[in-house]
């Protein structure tokens, strides 16, 4: 029998060591994740909620390197000045270990020098302009901190749209004349030239390509111009602009041209009901739908809907993936040291919600088979979202606007 004394001694030693190590961990504190996002918008809310989900999952399994993860949110609105203030607050005041967030390309671009000065890793989950990651190669030492997990950049998106135009619009529906309208924002300015070129090369006639002010509230002149141009389909590129109004005015005036393209606000699960059903037949590009794109998709989707009552928009998907990507890299690097984590991040090859996540030479997420891609989904009756492109993911037939018959 082990003497009571020895038992007590062992117990004390075990207890003491535990205390000391807990104290050591407690002294190190949690790993802080700074989230600059537009908190009043749905993209911001979903970013925070998805991040919370990911952080809770990781913490439940013991945290990262033995430390808990903690989230600090800062409102960057859609204004570069506020965005810069948010970054300064997160890095200088809250002293976060990593930044995960973003939405407006212009704001992110304005934040870059400040992020670089703060020497903090930044993983973008919402802004699409290729200019954001361009500096990674041009000035690696200062800008190696920048990564993008979501969305695929505007150039990739343009190519995906071209594929939609050539394959679905021209191939299936035999539309040969299209019009392109987009809000006058950086990512659209980057995207449209590639779109025009790709469409023309595919044999489609681009009758009209116009930018409009993001704050435009009356689109009737624009619709009139599109009608006059003889286009058969209207490709829209919208993110910050008032998609609600655009769609409502399109429906109310019964513009005889179907619409589709990239429309971020229309990704909101309640968009259809918000505009009184007037979004019917609009086709929108999404990154993920509730389908088994990877083993993670459906469990994430259902859990998100259960907890927050709404299906996630693209930034929610991105935020969840980004936190796991970061955690994965930190584990592989076994340290929080910037250079080590950056090297580990560069070698990321992880299964995300919509596909595999890998980075190219400018730290931008890759697109391609099995990786991150766009799918085209159409709003149909009863707020159903039917996948209409690519062909192998199709879940239904594409419909026309109700006033155009068939």
């Amino acid at each position, binding site marked *: 029998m082990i003497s009571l004394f020895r038992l007590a001694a062992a117990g004390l030693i075990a207890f003491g060591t535990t205390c000391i190590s807990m104290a050591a961990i407690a002294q190190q504190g949690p790993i802080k994740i700074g989230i600059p996002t537009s908190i009043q918008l749905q993209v911001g809310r979903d970013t925070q909620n998805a991040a919370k989900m990911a952080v809770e999952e990781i913490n439940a399994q013991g945290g990262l390197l033995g430390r808990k993860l903690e989230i600090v949110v800062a409102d960057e609105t859609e*204004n570069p*000045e506020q965005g810069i203030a948010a970054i300064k607050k997160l890095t*200088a005041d809250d002293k976060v270990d990593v930044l995960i967030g973003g939405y407006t390309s212009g704001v992110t671009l304005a934040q870059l020098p*400040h992020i670089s000065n703060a020497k903090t890793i930044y993983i973008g989950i919402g802004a699409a302009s290729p200019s954001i990651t361009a500096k990674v190669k041009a000035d690696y030492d200062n800008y190696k901190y920048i990564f993008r997990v979501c969305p695929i950049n505007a150039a990739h998106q343009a190519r995906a749209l071209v594929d939609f135009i050539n394959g679905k619009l021209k191939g299936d529906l035999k539309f040969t004349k299209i019009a392109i309208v987009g809000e*006058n924002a950086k990512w659209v*300015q980057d995207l449209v030239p590639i779109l025009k070129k790709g469409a023309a090369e595919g044999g489609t006639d681009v009758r009209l390509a116009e930018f409009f002010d993001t704050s435009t509230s009356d689109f009737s002149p624009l619709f009139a111009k599109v009608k006059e141009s003889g286009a058969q389909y209207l490709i829209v590129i919208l993110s910050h602009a008032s998609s609600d109004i655009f769609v409502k005015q399109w429906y109310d005036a019964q513009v005889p041209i179907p619409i589709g393209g990239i429309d971020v606000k229309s990704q909101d699960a309640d968009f259809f009901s918000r505009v009184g059903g007037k979004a019917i037949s609009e086709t929108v590009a999404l990154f993920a739908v509730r389908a088994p794109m990877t083993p993670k998709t459906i469990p994430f989707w259902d859990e998100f809907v259960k907890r927050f009552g709404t299906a996630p928009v693209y930034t929610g998907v991105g935020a969840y993936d980004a936190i796991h990507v970061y955690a994965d890299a930190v584990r592989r690097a076994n340290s929080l040291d910037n250079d080590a984590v950056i090297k580990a991040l560069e070698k990321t090859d992880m299964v995300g919600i919509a596909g595999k996540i890998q980075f190219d030479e400018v730290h931008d997420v890759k697109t391609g088979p099995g990786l991150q891609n766009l799918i085209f989904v159409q709003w149909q009756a009863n707020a159903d979202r039917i996948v209409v492109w690519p062909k192998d993911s199709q879940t239904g037939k594409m419909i026309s606007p109700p006033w155009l018959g068939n």
Partner: protein
Amino acid sequence: MQRVPWIDVLGGLIVLGVLALVPMFATSNYLTGVLTVCAIYGIWASSWDFMSGLTGRENFGHALFIGSGAYTAGFMATAWYLNPWYSLPAAVAVAVVFSLIVGFPTLRLRGPYFALAMLSASAIMQRLCLIYWEYTGGEEGLYGLDPIIRSPLHYYWFVLAILAVTVLILTLLAHAHWGLLLRAIRGDEATCQAAGINVTFYKIASLMISAAFTGLGGALYAHYQLQVSPPLFSVVVSITVIIMAYVGGVGSIYGAAIAAILLTLLTEMLRGFGEYRLWVYTLTLMLILFFLPGGLVAPAWRRLTARLR
């Protein structure tokens, strides 16, 4: 020339000293950054007060000078890659030119007419920046400027020094013959003209002076943010500056500067309220504007130091 009360000078020096020393006790650069923005707003508010406060012509387009100074700095940095120091005098020059362009045609206007004319001028510039987005960067503006001074603390002291010089010069002018004439013009312009005073010269000159300091502030702001965009021309910015001058006590100049610092600090300190931040801020503003129509800073200071004058 009216003497500047020694108590005001002492007060100013104390405030300056406190502002300069506070960041040294902070644990991070965050406070320094916030105070830098506070100081820049101080420059804008006090220069607005000099012109509009003394002459009684509320300039609702102050953002025009802010934006032109900032964009000058922006273009010089991103299009011509010039040394950031050059953008300071350039910004002053450009802002002054703009003040001449809008000043002459609007000379004879006053009251809401002048306000609207100036507002339209700054709104036109904002529009032009958006329309010619290929040159001006459109909504997202120009980014990638270099800081003038790399160390945030030293840059802050630099901006603070400029603020001090601004307030000093404007206060001296206001207490001198100049200020007297501007106030006379506010009282009764026709009489001034009849008395042989070159009213036109004084009105234009005061606008130019106001613009010069404001443009300088704009360039300082650009080199702090490292980015410029069209909202700098917006009516919201003009209104913010006017509110600061008003809370400070219109016509006092130092009041505007102090109020600018206080109000900017307030917006930062209210971050704890989260979404309610701006709501609390606006309510506070409403209370101040309602109960203290003469302003907060200058009247309070004068009451406080009444015995020592």
